[in-house]
């Protein structure tokens, strides 16, 4: 989250305003409010309360945390709307929920029950392996995953109002998250120093719409709020993501698969605020109990969720 990083909403009609009268600025606005915060995966109302008490800026309702999806296998779907409603009633902070990639009816259901944000997520089993949801058709805002700049801008063109780098969910291993954040930030740095004449070819190379590439070049950052996700397990991991330039952090299995969820959740929230203060980071990292068990990604048998969608 470098100095004067300003998030923009598309002006000058550069992005389509939706037909259903929810301007893009309203969709992006909530993401702007979440900046500098931690969004935590929860599977029931009780966990949602723990997250709220710890200072999470939003919760993500899902059927199973990614670590369990990995362990148990099977098809992972949107969670039961009843459960999401219970979570919504239990807390006052924004509630997000995951829908399968391309499953626009799950998204319609989530819109109907009035949650605040939909995560079109590769952590759930894909419903469509070619097309993502056309997010312009919804009044509810979407967050989508990406591994690189091209993927981020493709999602924004489809209507995503917030981006998270994918990392590798449910592993407790930060390596993929670092790889994806560095890829996005590195490409933006390259783009900033690029001659305008070269941007056309660069847009072609990263397979992203030219207008958004140019806008990213002018802003020097993604044109929407950008969180990190996938593998954050400790306060240090969260602060690392912030120092690499992210606007905030998603924590999935890292909190509720650890020894002392409430305490760890609180520490991660503090780490995101004080990400550049090693003294504070040292204090809050003390005595947190056991972290979640990590998975070594050199093992070929581990499925890569991040590669499920382009």
């Amino acid at each position, binding site marked *: *989250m470098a*100095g*004067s*990083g*300003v*998030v*923009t*909403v598309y*002006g*000058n*009609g*550069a*992005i*389509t*305003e939706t037909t259903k009268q*929810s*301007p893009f*600025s*309203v969709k992006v*606005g*909530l993401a*702007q*409010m*979440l*900046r*500098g*915060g931690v969004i935590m995966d929860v599977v029931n109302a009780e966990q949602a*309360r723990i997250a*709220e*008490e*710890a*200072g*999470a*800026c939003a919760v993500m309702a899902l059927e199973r945390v990614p670590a369990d999806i990995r362990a148990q296998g099977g098809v992972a779907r949107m969670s039961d709307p009843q459960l999401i409603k219970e979570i919504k009633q*239990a*807390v*006052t*902070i*924004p509630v997000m929920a995951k829908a399968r990639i391309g499953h626009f009816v799950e998204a319609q259901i989530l*819109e109907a029950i*009035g*949650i*605040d*944000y939909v995560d079109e997520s590769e952590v759930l089993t894909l419903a469509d392996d070619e097309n993502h949801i056309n997010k312009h058709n919804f*009044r*509810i805002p979407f967050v989508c995953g990406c591994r690189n700049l091209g993927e981020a801008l493709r999602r924004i063109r489809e209507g995503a109002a917030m981006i998270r780098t994918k990392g590798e969910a449910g592993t407790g291993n930060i390596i993929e998250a670092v790889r994806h954040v560095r890829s996005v930030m590195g490409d933006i740095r390259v783009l900033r120093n690029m001659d*305008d004449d070269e941007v056309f070819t660069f847009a072609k190379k990263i397979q992203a*719409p*030219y*207008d958004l590439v*140019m*806008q990213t070049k*002018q*802003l020097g950052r993604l044109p929407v709020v950008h969180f990190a996700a996938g593998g954050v397990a400790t306060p240090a991991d969260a602060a690392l993501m912030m120092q690499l330039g992210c606007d905030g952090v998603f924590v999935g299995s890292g909190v509720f698969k650890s020894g002392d969820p409430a305490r760890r959740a*609180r520490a991660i*929230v503090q780490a*995101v*605020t*004080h990400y550049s*203060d090693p003294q504070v980071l040292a204090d809050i990292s003390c005595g947190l109990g056991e972290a979640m068990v990590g998975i070594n990604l050199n093992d070929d048998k581990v499925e890569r969720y991040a590669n499920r969608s382009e």
Partner: protein
Amino acid sequence: MVVGVLALQGSFNEHIAALKRVGVKGVEIRKPDQLQSVKALIIPGGESTTMAKLAEYHNLFPALRDFVKMGKPVWGTCAGLIFLADKAIGEAKIGGQELIGGLNCTVHRNFFGSQIQSFVAELSIPEIVAKEGGPPSFHGVFIRAPGILEVGPEVEVLAEVPAPSDQTTKSDPADESVEMVNETSQEASSSTSLSSEDLKLSEPPKYELPVFQQ
């Protein structure tokens, strides 16, 4: 002049950028002792529950209350407004929420409902126009916004927004002073104008972007 921006969580970067645009230095405030170096304070929008928790972890509330009591100017946007209100009702989380107080009003958290009820509205601001000039209306963006239901006699209301008719909590139009998530000046939406200003510092945008319009 140096203005502090409470940087616990939320849109503090946007406020610092806006300050920079008018030629004022904004500094991030995360710890109590940092308050001593600033003449005024902005409490930005964000998630008020989160900001309250973080303020509590680092024992900021006493210092913030002292700052307000000393009569130094404090600006609250959205969640910041909730912090400054003497009384907050509705939708408070279990266990309540700590406030700074100092502004004699009653604020209703999350007054308009969830994200799907978020909206934009053109607000008429005659007093400000008379005093400072500029465009006659203000482009207000209300994201899970609070409403101000009552104000004390010493509080001056600058703008109002009618509450939606399907609002269950109150049927009267609620007073809503100018606290909101984004501010806009000209015809473009706010953050765009911020960012294009910023860009001018390094390089002017050379291209009109190709426009995709549905």
